[in-house]
């Protein structure tokens, strides 16, 4: 079944106000284009699970009720984003885990289980303030063991290097919490640098991170992770996050990247127009390494 659609449709048809949303691409290949579209559509009251993925825009626009997080800037003295959300009285609740805790909660969701055991977090004060982490008596003896409650996102969004029209998606490079997060999600949106022929997938099926039958929408979006790096494609872009430093810079950025354009492609075209035709060429990878093909067949 062909699931190719536009980012606009992928978001509007699958994500709704109040949803629990997983954003993949921790530190690598963030779904930037998708996040900007969510902001453009002002889908609000979201609870977001994201590990080091950029949630600044969602917070600054007051779209988050809650952020399930292991590491994020919460200090208003250091963040215009936080100050802005607070001024609107829309600062999200921050529910804190360790990074492994986030991974485990998603892993439980992926496994279809209500919780995962762990030895992390139980040594800290986190369980005092987060009722989704606690200690139990280990069922086969040996003392105490921690448990973390499952996350089952309503919607998961992952940006990948290649995907076929049916949604069989392949990502490589570091995977952060992509595997457990996307597999835990009920509805799945794949944004991909390139839609490839199914044969490309079928000749390397071990690389498929999520099978097509689990996927709701496929969006071809080149430079979809910009300005975050993506293995085999591009390195980090210039520091657009400076845009989050104060109101003026923020407003300019929002106009350029969200409200003043109809979609990500128009934003990309404007970046080129403004910064020169070679703007994106400069961040393309310069020293590609090609993998040795693996053989399958019969």
């Amino acid at each position: 079944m062909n699931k190719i659609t536009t980012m606009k449709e992928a978001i509007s048809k699958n994500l709704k106000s109040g949803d629990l949303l997983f954003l993949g691409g921790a530190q690598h290949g963030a779904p930037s284009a998708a996040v900007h579209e969510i902001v453009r559509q002002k889908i609000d009251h979201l609870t977001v699970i994201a590990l080091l993925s950029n949630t600044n825009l969602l917070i600054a626009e007051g779209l988050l009720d809650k952020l399930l997080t292991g590491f994020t800037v919460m200090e208003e003295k250091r963040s215009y984003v936080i100050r802005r959300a607070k001024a609107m009285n829309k600062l999200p609740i921050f529910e804190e885990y360790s990074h492994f805790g986030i991974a485990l909660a998603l892993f439980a969701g992926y496994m279809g289980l209500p919780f995962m055991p762990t030895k992390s977090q139980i040594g800290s004060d986190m369980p005092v303030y987060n009722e989704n982490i606690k200690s139990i008596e280990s069922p086969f003896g040996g003392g105490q063991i921690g448990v973390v409650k499952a996350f089952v996102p309503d919607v998961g969004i992952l940006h990948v290097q290649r995907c076929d029209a049916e949604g069989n998606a392949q990502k490589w490079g570091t995977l952060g919490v992509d595997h457990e997060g996307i597999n835990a999600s009920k509805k799945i949106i794949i944004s991909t640098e390139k839609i490839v022929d199914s044969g490309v997938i079928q000749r390397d099926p071990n690389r498929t991170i999520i099978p097509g039958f689990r996927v709701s929408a496929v969006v071809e979006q080149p430079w979809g992770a910009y300005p975050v790096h993506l293995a085999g494609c591009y390195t980090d872009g210039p520091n657009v996050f400076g845009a989050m430093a104060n109101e003026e810079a923020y407003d300019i950025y929002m106009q350029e990247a969200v409200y003043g354009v109809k979609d990500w492609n128009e934003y990309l075209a404007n970046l080129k127009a403004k910064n020169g035709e070679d703007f994106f060429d400069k961040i393309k990878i310069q020293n590609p390494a090609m993998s040795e093909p693996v053989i399958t067949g019969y």
Partner: protein
Amino acid sequence: MTQSKYATDYSAAEQMVVSAARQIEGNDVVYVGVGLPMQAGVLAKNLHAPNSTIVIENGIVRASIFPIPRATDNLHSQSYAEQLSGLFYVMCLAQAGYINTGFLGAGQIDRYGNCNDTAVGDYRNPIHRWQGSGGGNDVMSFCGRTIIILEQTKRRFLEKVDFNTCPGYLDGKPGRREEIGLPPNTGPAVVITDLATYCFEDGEMTLKTVHTGCGVTLEKVKAEISWDVKVADDITDTEPPTEEELNVYHEKIEAVLRSYGPRPGAAPPSAQAQGNPR
């Protein structure tokens, strides 16, 4: 280190990274976070510990040498790794006991090595907020020995941290870590600051060496600790960086980081301040 004579002109920051790098030896498997920990790992790989394995949170396991990344994950730290997976895999290696050495930063640290990367003051109504645990809690919970690197001030070195993000020896009573379910034979082993280095004796932070080569005195060290710190019987001067170590540091760390220019990426410019761990 004995092949090169000691440097005479160096900064406390250089001392910190060099002292930290020396904690990596032989076939160690080392978790490194952003900042000085990453610098220590890359320095050791380039110096005396080429056979160590570097593990980076986002799913990187690498035996081969690599240029220092701006933060932790970039195309340089990923490319030509021996294994790429995700955070879950890397943390399972740690939880199962296969990462013998971890490096962390910290916002506050206390007498028993507990670290706070969360909140100053009351959690519900904090005076200051750091970004939170990141992988810090996991590393300190799992690794055989964790080395904490941070700037030393009296406000950071407390009898008891305001919030325990990364468990040290908890209340200092023997066996407390195991009792609450942490793996045996784990915990903080060394603390490295801009003034001194510390070990742990019976779970208590113990002053081991003073950076006298940077002009630091015992009095200065003690002035920047909130409790009456235990001092090791064999307290000595911190071994200064050698010229070779400094040369490699300048070439492989400083110059490379400088070449990246201002940091783009995952957080606002000020986010990495306060020696925050990840």
